[in-house]
């Protein structure tokens, strides 16, 4: 037996392979029989004839490889030849199938045409060959002349592999889905509220009028592959069910009329595992809806979401810890009607002990207002303190423009003027008895000033008016605080003067009506007074709401003031969006005894009569109620005062038993159309 050295090589099946064996015997031209064996079991695979040439036994063998339906793509063989009784044996050689038939069938096992695939041949982990193709109209494609190695077939988008029907050495037949199932990531399928007035942030994708719609391949079909194509379409309600607002226009980015949708677009995945995204401009109008449908096919049936435009506003409530605030569900309900949510961002409570000594006068005994509990009076004298507290509340930058400072007070009066100086007034009063009421001052007085808790009288003097030659002539003195009493249960704008308490001059003994040598005493008093009472105010983001007894009234006031912050009712100063005309609001008004732009909806229907200014008599309205100058005098036939039913009606009853009906049908289109990016 001679030793033979054979080179291991790979040959493609059905190709001619040159067999060589170095042999010691024989002579050139001698015939030799080659026997080919399978390595796996040493079984004989083939025999061929060869000859001896130059010391080698050589032959050409048409290589036999595994059958196409075999499990393995290649097998190992070796061959031997006997020369002069000596057997020469070759090294192992690999015979592999060079062609692979790739087929695609559908879930019904029928051929599925044009499915794209990528075939890779691997040597270890290294790809030695990559072929991209598709299965053509027949659903089958034969990839030929591949190098040896492991064959992997990957189906490309949109095909999704269900299973392999046949996965053999030469046949790769896959059962496929022609597409993937799309899934909405954000907004999730179903109903979705998008708060279009707030700026979109990473943490709040539900904010912003430009909604970034994210979609992905359903995990069962996932992950996504480059080239996966999402089909997206939008459907809007009829035009008359949408806001008239046109700017910014509702739009799905890239959408146009398609064969498969009135407004549709496609989104291609660029990287494996990536989501598909498309921008949906929702506009700024509240209540507008759009239904967005997505799919892996143009039927767009995989997932859908109905998006409704909402607006979200926030408030920070500042209140006396001792006050019991009414529930605000009515506020929520009223605002929901115009697609606004009013969310409490924070609450700041305080007690008397929390307020600085300079605010001592702001806490007034309940009896001064005819109620049991101590009252917190807020107004010009102390509003700065509350505004500064609001400024310290942490409000995210993105919410700032939409956050209201809602200060709730028990009473509202202004203790100082615009220069922070207390209001002062001076009167002279002629008393004919030793005590009596002063002339009325220009505002209300408190036993302790609201602004500094001091006595309201800043200066005072008295003089006897007795003519020359009469007792008391020329006698005068100072009015002291002991002589002055504020009794708000009887008079709110006057002080009671008691001359008997004068420390000097004894004016009580001089005073009279001019008879019996006693003459009037003229008392001149300068006091600090407060302006009010008021029912609330709104200055940019700061609202001051008086805590009225009625819960409905309180809620309506909150909504009313917020309505003003939302620039309602429409007016020359509260310009509506371009698509809405100011004059199309039939009941907007200004004046008529009220301050600011308001709505008189339903007023003509309920007001039949008008009171005289002093309520002494009433008569029918001259033409119609909305022509009347003073709405606060309008009444029905029974003489009961009436008002408009819109929450933007202008009067401010504190205890009206008939609350508003929310935003009326005239106001709603304007409220819905208004962009609420800022309510400051």
């Amino acid at each position, binding site marked *: 037996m001679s030793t033979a050295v054979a080179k291991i090589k790979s040959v493609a099946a059905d190709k001619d392979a040159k067999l060589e064996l170095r042999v010691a015997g024989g002579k050139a031209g001698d015939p030799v029989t080659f026997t080919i064996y399978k390595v796996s079991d040493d079984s004989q695979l083939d025999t061929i004839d060869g000859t001896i040439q130059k010391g080698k036994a050589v032959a050409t063998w048409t290589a036999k490889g595994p059958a196409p339906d075999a499990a393995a793509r290649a097998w190992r063989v070796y061959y031997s030849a006997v020369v002069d009784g000596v057997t020469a044996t070759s090294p192992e050689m690999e015979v592999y199938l060079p062609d692979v038939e790739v087929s695609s069938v559908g879930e019904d096992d029928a051929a599925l045409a044009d499915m794209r695939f990528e075939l890779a041949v691997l040597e270890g982990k290294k790809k030695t060959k990559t072929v991209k193709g598709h299965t053509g109209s027949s659903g089958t494609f034969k990839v030929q002349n591949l190098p040896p190695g492991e064959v992997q077939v990957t189906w490309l988008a949109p095909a999704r592999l269900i299973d392999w029907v046949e996965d053999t050495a030469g046949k790769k037949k896959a059962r496929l889905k022609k597409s993937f199932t799309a899934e909405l990531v954000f907004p999730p399928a179903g109903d979705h509220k998008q708060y279009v007035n707030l700026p979109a942030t990473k943490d709040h994708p539900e904010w912003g009028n430009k909604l970034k719609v994210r979609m992905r391949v359903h995990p069962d079909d996932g992950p996504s592959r480059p080239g996966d194509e999402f089909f997206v379409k939008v459907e809007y309600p009829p035009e008359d069910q949408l806001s008239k607002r046109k700017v910014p226009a509702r739009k799905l980015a890239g959408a146009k009329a398609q064969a498969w949708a009135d407004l549709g677009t496609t989104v291609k995945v660029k990287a494996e595992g990536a989501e598909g995204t498309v921008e949906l401009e929702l506009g700024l109008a509240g209540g507008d809806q759009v239904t967005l449908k997505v799919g892996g096919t143009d039927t767009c049936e995989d997932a859908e979401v109905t998006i409704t435009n909402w607006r979200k506003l926030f408030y920070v409530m500042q209140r006396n810890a001792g006050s019991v605030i009414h529930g605000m569900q009515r506020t929520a309900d009223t605002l929901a009607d115009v697609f606004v949510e009013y969310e409490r961002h924070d609450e700041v409570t305080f007690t008397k002990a929390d307020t600085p000594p300079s605010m001592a006068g702001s806490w007034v005994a309940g009896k001064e207002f005819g109620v049991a509990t101590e009252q917190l009076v807020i107004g010009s004298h102390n509003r700065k303190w509350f505004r500064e507290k609001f400024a310290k509340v942490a409000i995210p930058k993105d919410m700032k423009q939409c956050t209201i400072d809602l200060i709730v007070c028990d009473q509202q009066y202004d203790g100082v003027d615009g*220069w922070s100086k207390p209001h002062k007034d001076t009167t002279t009063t002629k008393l004919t008895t030793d005590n009596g009421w002063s002339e009325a001052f220009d505002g209300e007085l408190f036993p302790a000033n609201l602004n500094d808790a001091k006595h309201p009288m800043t200066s005072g003097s008295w003089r006897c008016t007795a003519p020359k030659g009469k007792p008391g002539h020329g006698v005068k003195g100072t009015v002291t605080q002991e002589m002055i009493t504020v009794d708000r249960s009887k008079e709110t704008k006057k002080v009671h003067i008691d001359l008997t308490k004068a420390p000097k001059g004894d004016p009580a003994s001089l005073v009279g009506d001019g008879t019996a040598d006693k003459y009037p005493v003229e008392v001149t008093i300068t006091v600090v007074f407060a302006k009010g009472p008021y029912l609330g105010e709104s200055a940019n983001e700061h609202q001051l709401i008086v805590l009225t007894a009625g819960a409905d009234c309180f809620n309506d006031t909150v909504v009313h003031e917020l309505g003003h912050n939302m620039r309602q009712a429409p007016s020359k100063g509260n310009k509506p969006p371009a698509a809405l005309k100011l004059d199309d609001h039939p009941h907007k008004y200004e004046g008529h005894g009220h301050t600011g732009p308001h709505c008189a909806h339903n007023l003509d229907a309920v007001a039949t009569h008008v009171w005289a200014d002093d309520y002494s008599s009433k008569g029918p309205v001259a033409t119609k109620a909305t022509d009347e100058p003073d709405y606060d005098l309008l009444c029905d036939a029974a003489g009961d005062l009436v008002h408009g039913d819109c929450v933007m009606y202008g009067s401010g009853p504190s205890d009206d038993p008939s609350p508003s009906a929310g935003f009326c049908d005239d106001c709603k289109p304007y409220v819905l159309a208004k962009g609420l990016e800022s309510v400051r």
Partner: protein
Amino acid sequence: MSDERLVVDDGDFWTDPRRREDELVPRLLEEGFLGLRLDAPGRIDVEDADAMPLVGLFGATAQERQVHDLERDLVVVATRLESRQTWAALLHEPRRAPRGRPRSVAPAGSGRGMRMFAADARPRLPDLPWRPGTLALRLLLADKASNAARTVLGRGARPIEQDPAVQAFLAEHRQPAFPRPVWPLPDSPLPTFDPIDGSPEPPAEVGIVVALDRVNVVREGGPQVTCIARGSFRLPLSPRDLVRPEPPREADDDDAVHASAGAAAAVADDALPDWDPRVEREAERAERRAAEDEGLGLVWRDVGDPAARAVIPVTLVGTGVKRPDPLVVPLQVPIYADLDPARLPPTVTGHFALDLLRVPDGYKLLRQTTHLWAFSGDVVAGPFTTAVVAEAEVRRP
């Protein structure tokens, strides 16, 4: 009191307008002063300040004080002397107060009272152009009017207009502004700018007279005319009042250039998206400026009445006894007399007659007594008093 100022100096308006209160009030009360006084800064820099502080003083009998509520009733009137435009509004912003039937009020005594008050009139007159010019400011309290306080709105600490050479140059080259369109346009029978039955004779001296029926009844279904104001005047005539043809090109003075820019911005407004608050605010500013330009006569406009040879601004301001929120009627009265631009008379006479209930906001006269005042530049006339009652009211039991 006479012309005594209510402040020590103009600086008080920005720090403590009532600085003299403790000194003035006792003294004036002692002196028996009754009436309404007003003081205002002599000059306000429109670039530095966005406020128009005023300080007032009201001395009155207790009975008067019971009738007049300073917080509710005071009306501020500003007349721009260059254009003779007038703006008026309640001095104090009405506030929401608890509503209810009025309580009976005890009659006032024989005493008196005096109060000093301060307010910022700027937010109350939002349409007043915040541009250089001269204002005559007054307060009205029903049938009482204060003195006029004059305030110059200036720009910058040392405006170029104070340069004598610039002043001379401007005097020589600046083109007069244009008259604003006639308003209201004449109709039959009213409004009219011809004398009618009951029209008063124009005064012999500069002035305005208005004749009103003392009591007017609004008759349901009756004639449209319900509250006729018949006015006549003799007023100064200036070149800017003359009706002139549209100039062939833009005037080249600064104001006209601004005017044209403002008008262009207003036109462009239509094309701007309205969802960006900044853009919206900018558009509103441009619109406001364009309106101001028109109001100030900086933009040529057809006056709308081919027979008009000049147009004289006369503003009627009515303030009611019950509801003082003023009715402002900015008349632009056409002058039909032939006028030779080369030999302009110093004054012209004119007439107007209109139904005050048919002008915008005319409803304010209903069911109350109103004191009407007329303003044109430095000229003020009034009060002319009228009352309007509804026929239905007459029938009331």
